[in-house]
């Protein structure tokens, strides 16, 4: 319930490819809320937070793109000094190994997206803390 899905696309040479991917999403009527790019030399993975995840996956797949859903946790961060530190500290104390993270601010609310090996376990640990995890609906209506 409090997991958030990103749509990830395998694209080499991502700068040239980005436009073609966003075109597919636009044509399908999918709204992109957030994007993050992970690269390693020629390997590139573009991850989008979109309003219609399944539709995005279907449309990309139909156009021949290799896509996959990635489950992440969205943690609300207090938009004040020390806000991010509280979250980072909590993750470290609970030995949650974060593979990837990205953050954004929307309407004065800050959100940290984290990718972890075991989403279910991390969610269980984090909900016991004072941190607030956002659901897909919540994050899309920020």
């Amino acid at each position, binding site marked *: 319930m409090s997991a958030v899905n*990103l749509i*990830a696309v395998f694209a080499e040479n991502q700068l040239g490819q980005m436009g073609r991917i966003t075109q597919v999403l636009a044509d399908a009527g999918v709204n992109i809320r957030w994007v993050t790019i992970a690269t390693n030399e020629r390997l590139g993975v573009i991850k989008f937070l979109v309003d219609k995840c399944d539709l995005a996956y279907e449309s990309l797949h139909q156009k021949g793109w290799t896509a996959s859903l990635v489950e992440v946790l969205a943690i609300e961060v207090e938009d004040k000094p020390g806000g991010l530190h509280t979250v980072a500290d909590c993750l470290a104390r609970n030995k949650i190994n974060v*593979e990837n993270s990205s953050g954004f601010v929307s309407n004065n609310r800050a959100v940290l997206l984290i990718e972890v090996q075991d989403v279910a376990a991390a969610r269980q640990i984090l909900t016991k803390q004072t941190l607030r995890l956002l659901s897909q609906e919540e994050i899309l209506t920020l």
Partner: protein
Amino acid sequence: MTYWDQKTETIERAALEALQLKRLQAIVRRVARKVPFYQRKLADCGVQPRDIRSLADLRRLPFTTNTDLRDTYPTGLLAIPSEDVLRLHTSSGTTGKPKALFFSRRDVDNAAELMARCLVMTGVTHRDVLQNMMTYGLFTGALVMHYGAEKVGCLVIPAGPGNSEKQLLLMQDFRTTVIHVTPSYALYLADFMEKKGVDPRRDLALRKAFVGAESYTEETRRKIEQALGIDVYNSYGLSEMNGPGIAFECEHKCGMHIWEDNFLIEIIDPRTGEPLPDGQTGELVLTALCREAMPLLRYRTRDITSIIPGPCSCGRTHRRLHRMTGRSDDMLIVRGVNIYPQQIERVLMSLPSVGRNYQIVLEGLDEMTINVELAEAGFDGHVEHLTRLQSEIVDRLRAEILTKPKVHLVPPGTLPVSEGKAKRVIDNRSL
């Protein structure tokens, strides 16, 4: 464990080598007497039959090549009077003249004998029903299998290829247990049965398939095994050396035992002709020790393989050959190392996250880059996992081809679709 010819199949290595030497000396003496082609070749090498005192002297003998067979067509390599020839087969190359292959009565019987060893080695008995779906004719494949299976006492159905409706009917009515078939036809048949609503596990008595005449991968073997619910055994044959039945897998399926009492085996570096030790990959060279009508010395098969060192748990002392990894004609030389595209293919296809398509690009002074398509199911959205897979491919390739290539993983469907292996290699080197 049953054997067709236990004494020969489990012979001590020392006794085997003594037998090999005796037979080698006899065959060299015979070709020096009977075959002008070899008289000339031996003279060119400055070797006389009496110079062959140990198996190590094999290296002093001349090679025989594919071209030699064509140049001496039709009867230039015949070592017996033509009235004593019992059977002719030919082997058609893709270009030029065919190769003529003669069998004496003893050769026909001996080929069947070796085939019988192979069949029994995989567990075939006289109770089996063997449906032979290879082409009967000038090609050696079907007839040698036919005679071998008859020798074992199987009921042999000479069905030949094609007409799947009839094949299925024969399999049902005569409870066929073994088929001899090409890999592509085996897959076609499996598909045909599915369309006809025939479940081979439930409706047929099939147990085994001998799959050959076309090269195929380990993956294809598993596919056929699963589709038909049977065991598939790899085999190696060569028309120039009897046809099928030269080397076969035993029940352990861990390499193909080659009958060393009949064939002397060498693995050579195709560039230099120098012999390579067991375990190293190179060109297979065969000397036929028992062929009467048409003995061949050090025949360069152009097939690439390696000898698997060590004994097999089946008890047979005859060494094993690895599955053929390609033809010497396909060989690439990168940074001085011989590399066969099939070695690369084998590594890639053993990784489930890797897709079907790949491309080998040679450029610059001597740089090798391998573009590898990811399997559709191999993408989970994490660039870290792609990076890890990429380094795993590099490590495995380095272990196989002894040089470190660059590897680029690319999304499925992004490489040009190539037909045949030749186009998978793009050589842009500025040498």
